[in-house]
């Protein structure tokens, strides 16, 4: 969660290139139409598989609740690590799935923050994975309230408290 040793942009670009090669060949073998967009966001390589075909063409690579996307991200990080010798924290997205997930989480966080502010009581959210919790924590901090996490994975959840 800290920004220690943010890798240089060139390293992140190299991570993106390795990831793109790995994913492009997979799309080829699986006969899936998709292009790879590369970028750098929040000090990490950002890689997205996009499709100009009908919406839903890449749904298979997202899976239920992003299960396939997370698995593919894991393998892509390992592929980068195998070539660079360094752990990769690259973020993979497919057809905007994570962006939509982030919007939905921010909506949940916004509603919970409103509730905490009006009632003066803490609110516990549903269980989330670390990535989702981070999005909520960031949003709550920006709104000027305090949050922490309670419970044990996979039942760990964010609790938002009055400031």
């Amino acid at each position: 969660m800290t920004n220690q040793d943010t890798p240089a942009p060139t390293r992140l670009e190299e991570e993106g290139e390795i990831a793109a090669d790995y994913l492009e060949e997979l799309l080829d073998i699986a006969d899936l139409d998709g292009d790879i967009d590369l970028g750098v966001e929040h000090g990490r390589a950002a890689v997205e598989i996009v499709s100009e075909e009908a919406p839903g063409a890449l749904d298979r690579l997202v899976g239920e609740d992003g299960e396939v996307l997370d698995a593919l991200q894991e393998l892509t990080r390992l592929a980068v690590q195998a070539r660079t010798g360094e752990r990769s924290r690259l973020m993979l997205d497919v057809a905007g799935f994570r962006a939509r997930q982030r919007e939905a989480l921010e909506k949940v966080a916004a509603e919970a923050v409103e509730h905490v502010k009006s009632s003066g009581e803490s609110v516990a959210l549903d269980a989330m994975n670390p990535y989702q919790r981070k999005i909520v924590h960031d949003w709550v901090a920006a709104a000027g309230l305090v949050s922490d996490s309670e419970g044990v994975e996979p039942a760990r959840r964010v609790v938002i408290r009055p400031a």
Partner: protein
Amino acid sequence: MLADALEHLVRGIVDNPEDVQVTARSARRGDYLELRVNPADLGRVIGRSGRTARALRTVVGAIAEGPVRIDVVDVDRR
């Protein structure tokens, strides 16, 4: 095609890609993919608590649009 996909996914994450071999097999219990890797890469393809092996099954299963059985065998064994 599934065997090719698995072979590609694994070759990208190991130290000895030339030793990766995937064979599609049929058995009474159903079709499965047999994955052979260099013994030195066994840990790589299994991962901590089987995390990498699980990721491989998830992605190959998604491409297959159904569950796929993957057996990991190291090249020393026959």
